[in-house]
């Protein structure tokens, strides 16, 4: 069975989704979903070990050799992302039952979990596949289920946010589709490794250039890179808390993965960074994104909105690391992907806990909350510190490496700007702390108690991860380093 | 002969489309769409023969069905199917333009 791990990783959740409909009882479905997600997590650990031990794994669907059949190809980069996604999903699911009961009516629970599993499977599929068109198919599975889940949020704004996301997401996916078509036209293949072999021969044609441009735009739409981020804050804010926690931690990371995979493995480093002014473009957009999104975050009164904008800013950091174009920069990006997943997972789950008790995430309703829900608020504070990049948290580690990578290139103004961006983060995190700890609740507001254990445990699991990986940096750094080096090693 | 008929059908498709575009009433449009559909069926049949692959007839069959279904659907959901409106003044059917 070990040989089948790559495919099991994806089809276990994929096949579990229809099974949910057969089980039907909400509580049972939740337990089943949790089990499946846990299984996916175990599989991803096993895969990571296999990859570290024996190098890239290739799996041929249907027994047809690539490029005729579809190939699954797992190397360090994929394995790390698989691990992140399935781990976050499992932790988030621990909290799901409690949080969902408060936010979605009972009769939709089964459908919700089925959609959740589909979305999980979609993301895992995007990451593990080695076939360009297969990426598109799984992208659509994950996005369609995302649209539906976001629309299940409370209030009518969830619908509108979901619709906007649907339009933007579909445009993005169609751009990617166009790009894949152009690549296919020029090379006659869809397999990524094969594309990497054959693209250099036609690299100087205009068609390939356009294909590259379309791919970048399409992925950036999904990634919510700064000027194309309009859909993200609303979508994150009005979705059910669980969904927000899951997506904030994973979905943009998957898009980033696609970006890295195609620029480095498929088009190749030399093409991506020499023919187009990509480096300058991404650097500029990344920095702009950090500042504008952070500034926007400061003015938000809805905490989910606030953290959503901060997500856009964090994506800016990742893109800056990516645009440095060195192994060190890429490593910083990957590290930040991992860390940001931990941070945002924890923060949004904690907000979910607040939502569960207070039924609002407006800043006004946070007055004096620190005394009523000390553990939850403490989690938010630790997450916030990590977001700023205070030492001993994960946020510090990745920012440290990012600044180092930038300085290596001699771009000291950029490094200064990155640090300035962190200052903005201090402002918005302080805003929350101030309200929650130092302002007394208005008289007459009902007393609330601490969030239930079922929510606190997953929140603190993630927070503990934040601190643990902040102190013991070896594991994360090692993985990111080997992945970054393997990408620069040339072989996809 | 085949080619001539195919071209003729194409021309008619175009005429039907113009009628669909200028309307002026909603029913004219449905009429045009319906006509367009039947002509497409014929067009596909002829095309199959022109290209020497008569297997294409399956597609023509689907077109005929789909065309029918969409006309029914348009009538059903345009809101004019369920309720009955008195057709103006019954005594003098017709109107002056």
């Amino acid at each position: 069975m070990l040989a089948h791990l790559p495919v099991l990783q994806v089809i276990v959740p994929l096949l579990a989704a229809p099974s949910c409909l057969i089980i039907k009882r909400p509580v049972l479905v939740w337990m089943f979903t949790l089990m499946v997600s846990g299984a996916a997590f175990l599989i991803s650990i096993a895969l990571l070990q296999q990859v570290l031990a024996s190098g890239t794994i290739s799996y041929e669907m249907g027994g047809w050799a690539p490029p005729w059949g579809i190939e699954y190809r797992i190397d360090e980069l994929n394995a790390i992302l698989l691990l992140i996604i399935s781990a976050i999903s499992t932790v988030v699911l621990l909290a799901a039952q409690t949080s969902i009961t408060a936010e979605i009516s009972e009769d939709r629970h089964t459908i919700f979990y089925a959609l959740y599993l589909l979305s999980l499977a979609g993301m895992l599929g995007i990451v593990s596949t080695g076939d360009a068109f297969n990426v598109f198919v799984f992208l659509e599975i994950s996005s369609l289920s995302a649209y539906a889940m976001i629309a299940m949020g409370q209030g009518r704004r969830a619908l509108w946010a979901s619709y906007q996301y649907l339009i933007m997401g579909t445009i993005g996916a169609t751009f990617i589709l166009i790009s894949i078509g152009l690549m296919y036209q020029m090379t006659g293949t869809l397999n990524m490794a094969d594309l990497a072999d054959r693209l250099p021969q036609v690299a100087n044609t205009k068609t390939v250039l356009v294909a590259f441009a379309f791919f970048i735009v399409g992925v950036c739409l999904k990634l919510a890179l700064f000027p194309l981020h309009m859909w993200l804050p609303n979508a994150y804010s009005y979705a059910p808390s669980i969904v927000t926690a899951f997506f904030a931690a994973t979905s943009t990371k998957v898009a980033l993965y696609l970006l890295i995979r195609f620029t480095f493995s498929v088009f190749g480093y030399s093409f991506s960074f020499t023919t187009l002014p990509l480096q300058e473009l991404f650097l500029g957009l990344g920095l702009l994104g950090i500042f504008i999104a952070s500034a926007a975050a400061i003015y938000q009164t809805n905490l989910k909105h606030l953290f959503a904008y901060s997500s856009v800013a964090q994506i800016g950091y990742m893109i800056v690391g990516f645009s440095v174009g060195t192994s060190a920069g890429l490593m910083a990006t990957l590290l930040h992907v991992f860390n940001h997943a931990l941070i945002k997972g924890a923060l949004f789950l904690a907000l979910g806990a607040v939502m569960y008790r207070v039924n609002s995430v407006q800043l006004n309703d946070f007055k004096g909350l620190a005394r009523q829900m000390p553990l939850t608020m403490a989690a938010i504070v630790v997450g916030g510190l990590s977001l700023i990049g205070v030492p001993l948290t994960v946020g510090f580690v990745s920012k440290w490496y990012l600044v180092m990578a930038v300085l290596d290139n001699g771009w000291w103004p950029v490094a200064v700007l990155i640090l300035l961006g962190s200052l903005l983060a201090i402002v918005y995190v302080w805003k929350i702390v101030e309200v929650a700890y130092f302002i007394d609740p208005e008289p007459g507001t009902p007393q609330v108690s601490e969030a239930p254990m079922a929510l606190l445990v997953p929140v603190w699991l993630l927070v503990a991860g934040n601190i643990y990986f902040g102190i013991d940096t070896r594991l994360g750094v090692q993985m990111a380093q080997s992945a970054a080096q393997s990408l620069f090693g040339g072989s996809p | 002969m085949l080619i001539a008929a195919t071209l003729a059908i194409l021309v008619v498709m175009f005429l039907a489309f113009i009628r669909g575009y200028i309307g002026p009433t909603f029913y004219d449009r449905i009429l045009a769409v319906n006509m367009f559909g039947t002509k497409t069926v014929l067009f596909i049949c002829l095309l199959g023969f022109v290209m020497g692959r008569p297997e294409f007839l399956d597609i023509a069959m689907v077109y005929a069905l789909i065309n029918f279904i969409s006309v029914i659907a348009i009538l059903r959901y345009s809101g004019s199917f369920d309720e009955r409106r008195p057709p103006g003044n019954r005594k003098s059917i017709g109107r002056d333009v």
Partner: protein
Amino acid sequence: MLLCVAVAIVRMKDLLAVVMLLGVYGLLSASFFVTMDAVDVAFTEASVGAGISTVLMLTTIAMTGRNESAPPYKHLLALVLVVMTGALLVYGTMDMPYFGFAEAPANLHVAPRYIQDSMAEVGVPNLVTAVLASYRGFDTFGEVMVIFTAGLGVLALLGLAKPPKDGDAEIDLLHDKLHEQHLVLRVVCKMLIPFILLFALYVQFHGDFGPGGGFQAGVIFAAAIILYGMLFGLSTARRVINQPLVLLLSGIGAMLYGMVGVVSMLKGGDFLDYSVLLSDPIAGQHLGILLIELGVGITVASVMVIIFFNFAGRIEYLQRKRSRDKQG
């Protein structure tokens, strides 16, 4: 011609007309696919583009009203953006191999093996089916999952907590009136529907040899049920086909596909490797393709029915709500 229709769609204000033109657009592009030798695609595009999506848009418009009020805004910016994108694409076409050129790289690298060897390897004359179901079977599995997701999504959005009771007097009255009025339609449809179902089965099982396959068959099958639902009223249709069962069926279709893969895995091959299903690889391929096409057909048909039922059910729900509001 396609151009004319597209321009017309931009200019139309009346949403119903837009939908009709969209149907025409679907038919036209399908005819274009036929001239481009893509028969299977034409088949699908006709049933989807001109059939299902038209019906869905019509039901939506029935609920939302048909006039577009606001003038388009953001004119200039949008135009600039679009022209830029278009210019980029045209720039990209400059180095493309010419249209229909047999020596283009797309036709030289991967495709020749499908054309030359698939008869020996898969044994299905319809190359599209062979590639779809066997070489790129995993894509098709993903496709089934996409459609399944859409079904669940629509159910999550439009599903009603309690299915309406049978015999709601007012709605029934409406239907009775409807039946009286359109006797001819009813009779003709009664004659047609068995034929359509039969035809769907033909498409399903003839997909190996001619254009067609699970997806197309599923859509046609669903179209028959939709026709029935439209003419005989939703509650009548629900009495024949109950919704939880259909939902279950859609899941079962997807599971069937996956299980074929899992069984082939248990038998020692890779996922979806049909050759190991039976002792003779070709026979195994045939069996595998037959089963997965069946899975696709079941899922697609039931998801389409679910989607239609929920859209149309919403209309009835709104009608009833409105009439209740009027009374109360």
